[in-house]
């Protein structure tokens, strides 16, 4: 998995900044292998209004047009200096293709599903339309991934995104009916989840064919909504099956409180877990150990949105000190987040590593990357 560039590193065991490409770095970290420095990774959207203006690719077009989508996604590498790009800024591409009513919103807000108008009621309704993969809100993602691969080559990890069955359930059944069904008829709920899994796999495979290196799997069984035992009962085995059915690294995304289910999550064999700032890095690492790679968990609404670079750096350091193998924002960042704060993440990572190895270039040199 680790390219030839890192031979020296492998022989000497010394981290050298710039030795690995972003792609190698992310893929190695996802595989639990050694890296020259901790990769900065965004399994969810880092699109901001400022970045949209910069490359003239705005919401909602950038969510529906592959070319604009790719242009906006590339900025996490070209402008922010992250080691990954992630073109799926929404969580509704497949829901749109399944027939949910979507509110696409404007430049300054995320689009969303009108969950008050559910399209399905029971497992009998769960069907992937035969032209699902040809729907424009699906093909734009595939197109964007192809373009990114072509334009950025092997330099940076291209992360796709395929929604897990639990979140799809919120969208197609409506959140409240779905959660009530889980209580009233767990067996039927499992049947629904099992059938929706096909959609997750199909979209995931299509993104792999288009050139994705890894896939984010958002599946919001969060502590803010359901218990940790719920995760075990409904999702642990299902996520394990997804590991078998999807041949590239999967990054599970669940925002909110999750420490009470991290042990179960770590049992699935998923490559990584994208975790939220409501969970302490050290405590989380203690639970998962090296069974799964944590990604995260810089706070969005306070640290990245409302605070400045200094506080961002502090949170980066807390993750690095705890041994978190990939660093990044906790979830889709607020669209009004300042670029300066985002740029601080890779800078703080580089400084942290430089402080630990005097043979590395000083942070000021790193800055001119």
């Amino acid at each position, binding site marked *: 998995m680790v390219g030839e560039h890192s031979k020296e590193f492998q022989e000497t065991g010394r981290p050298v900044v710039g030795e690995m490409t972003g792609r190698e770095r992310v893929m190695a970290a996802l595989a639990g292998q050694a890296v020259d420095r901790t990769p900065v990774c965004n399994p969810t959207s880092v699109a901001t209004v400022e970045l949209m203006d910069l490359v003239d690719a705005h919401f909602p077009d950038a969510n529906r047009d592959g070319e604009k989508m790719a242009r906006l996604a590339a900025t996490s590498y070209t402008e922010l200096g992250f080691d990954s790009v992630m073109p799926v800024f929404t969580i509704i591409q497949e829901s749109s293709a399944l027939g949910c009513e979507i509110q696409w*919103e404007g430049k300054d807000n995320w689009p969303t599903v009108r969950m008050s108008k559910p399209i399905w009621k029971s497992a009998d309704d769960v069907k992937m339309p035969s032209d699902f993969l040809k729907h424009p809100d699906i093909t734009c993602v595939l197109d964007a991934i192809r373009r990114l691969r072509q334009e950025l080559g092997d330099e940076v990890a291209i992360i796709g995104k395929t929604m897990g069955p639990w979140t799809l359930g919120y969208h197609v059944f409506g959140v409240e009916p779905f959660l*009530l069904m889980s209580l009233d008829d767990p067996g039927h709920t499992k049947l629904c989840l099992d059938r929706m899994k096909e959609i997750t796999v199909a979209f995931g495979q299509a993104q792999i064919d288009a050139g994705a290196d890894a896939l984010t799997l958002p599946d919001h069984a969060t502590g803010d909504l359901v218990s940790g035992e*719920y995760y075990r009962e409904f999702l642990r085995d299902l996520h394990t099956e997804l590991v078998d059915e999807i041949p590239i690294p999967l990054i599970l995304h669940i925002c909110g409180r999750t420490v009470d289910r991290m042990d179960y999550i770590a049992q699935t064999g998923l490559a990584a877990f994208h975790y939220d700032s409501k969970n302490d890095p050290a405590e989380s690492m203690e639970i998962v150990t090296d069974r799964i790679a944590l990604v995260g968990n810089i706070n969005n*609404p306070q640290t990245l949105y409302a605070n400045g670079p200094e506080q961002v750096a502090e949170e980066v350091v807390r993750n690095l000190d705890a041994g978190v193998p990939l660093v990044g924002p906790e979830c889709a960042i607020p669209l009004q987040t300042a670029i300066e704060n985002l740029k601080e993440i890779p800078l703080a990572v580089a400084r942290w590593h430089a402080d630990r190895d005097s043979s590395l270039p000083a942070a000021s040199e790193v800055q001119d990357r």
Partner: protein
Amino acid sequence: MAELADIPNEFIKNEVDEFVEREDERAELIELYSQSAPHLLEIGAAIISGRNEDADRLTVEALERGTGALEVMDDGLIAGMALVGIKFRENFIFVPEVLACARAMKAGMVHIEPILSASGIEPLAKVIMGTVKGDLHDIGKNLCIMLLRGAGFEVIDLGVDTSADEFIDAVEEHDATLVGMSALLTTTMPNMGRTIDAFIDADVRDDVKIMVGGAPVTPEFADEMGADAYGDNAVECVEVAKRLVGVTG
């Protein structure tokens, strides 16, 4: 002062003992439950365990037996919901369980509401609730609504993605005295302030009290944009609502 042992229902006694940790809340609930009739506490127990068919049946039975609708509501249905809110706030139960409790509450209320409206008994106040423009997160708002209804408020739910005009129109149409706004996104939080400004522009700001909430909202932010109050969770939402309309207890 009443004690735990005075609660004439084993299930509720155990629930209070196990799940209510705050001293003031414990004392308040023990007081409430120890005064309630056993057959009404059965209703409360059905609410707490989310058994909607039992809540339905027990409510009908209580009414048939001659217990007043108001008493069935206060000492049965509402009393049950009070414990549900606390269990949720403390993470002993989660959203699916609260939804089931609310469904049970609704099953009982179906029988109470027509009696109350026929007898002209007024709700504590009329509340307009909605998630602000551009935001479709409604789980938290819905839980607040359940507890508000559970506490005796009449709530008009405007749903999600609610414009300032929709809030204002609803206040006028329903003659409401209280407005609650919810926002979960930093991108939509400013729409709370914009809605409050629209109330001022429409010259109706003084007709209502406005409360706000949702995960990213802080008391400071609420203050800055001119809201009357902030609530951190659904239990607090009820406390705040009572305070704003001048109800104590």
